[in-house]
């Protein structure tokens, strides 16, 4: 049986992946984000554009490809997302 994720969970997973993969200032490539967040290319493009416009992710220009790194606001959001996720987990529910 398939596992369903809500939009907020997908955003959380992408930000988590970006945080994990942003080990230096270069950021993470789309391919790595797709693998880590388990999401299709067509879907992630739209969400990444949204996240960049919201200021949760920063776009890093590289010579070969476009990369993304998590912003300070993105880190704050991720922290809050984890808090509320833990809150619902305590009730045996999913956010």
């Amino acid at each position, binding site marked *: 049986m398939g596992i369903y994720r809500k939009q907020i969970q997908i955003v959380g997973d992408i930000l988590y992946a970006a945080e994990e993969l942003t080990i230096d200032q270069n950021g993470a490539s789309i391919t790595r984000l797709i693998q880590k967040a388990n999401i299709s290319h067509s879907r992630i493009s739209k969400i990444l554009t949204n996240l960049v416009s919201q200021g949760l992710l920063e776009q890093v220009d590289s010579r070969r490809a476009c990369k993304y790194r998590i912003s300070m606001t993105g880190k704050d959001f991720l922290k809050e997302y984890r808090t509320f996720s833990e809150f619902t987990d305590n009730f*045996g529910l999913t956010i």
Partner: protein
Amino acid sequence: MEFLLENILNLIGFIVGIIIGVFAYVGYKNTGSPVLFRLTIAFIAIGIGFGIIWAGYVIDDIYLQEGKINRGLQALGLGIQTIGYFFIAFSHTIKSFFPKSRYFRSVGILPLFALSAMNIEHIIRSFSFILLVYGAIETFVSFLEGKQKGTLAVGIGLALLAFGEFIAWYSLVFPESILYSVSILLKISGLISLFIPISRLPLRKIKFDDFEDNEDEKFGR
């Protein structure tokens, strides 16, 4: 003694319910999660329910001095609490609580008009008991899957509230016994247990923009 314990229980219930409800509301505002919305309604209702009963005791203590709460007020408070317990149970995907047939619905409502406030109170308690048991079982099942201490604490909290509700209902048989005081102590323990995992979470607000699209995505794993 019973009067004092009731005051303490209802005050704690009011405070715990409102704090958890506000926290869930902040989460709902930030994430748009319907689960957090249901938990907001649940805990605000539980808080208000306890608050009404507490206000009833305070009014009696200060003005009426009859040594007992108005039964109608108590039934109202318990009813609102039951709505809260229903939403906790509903979050665990209760699909339909009331009978679908219009005939059964009308028959189900009839006894409410034929019974006294005292009887309604005990009917409400039995509903609360069922909903709390359901919520506790589902939370324990989630604990067995996730093994999180917070889930265990919430499960124990709901179970203690259910047991307290059962003892309170059973005290109808032995009205002058210690049973009612025991039920109050059980419920206070339950509320404290519910609050423990929530108290560990940072209670601060941060504003985020539109992530309220609850469109689901299927992943074949």
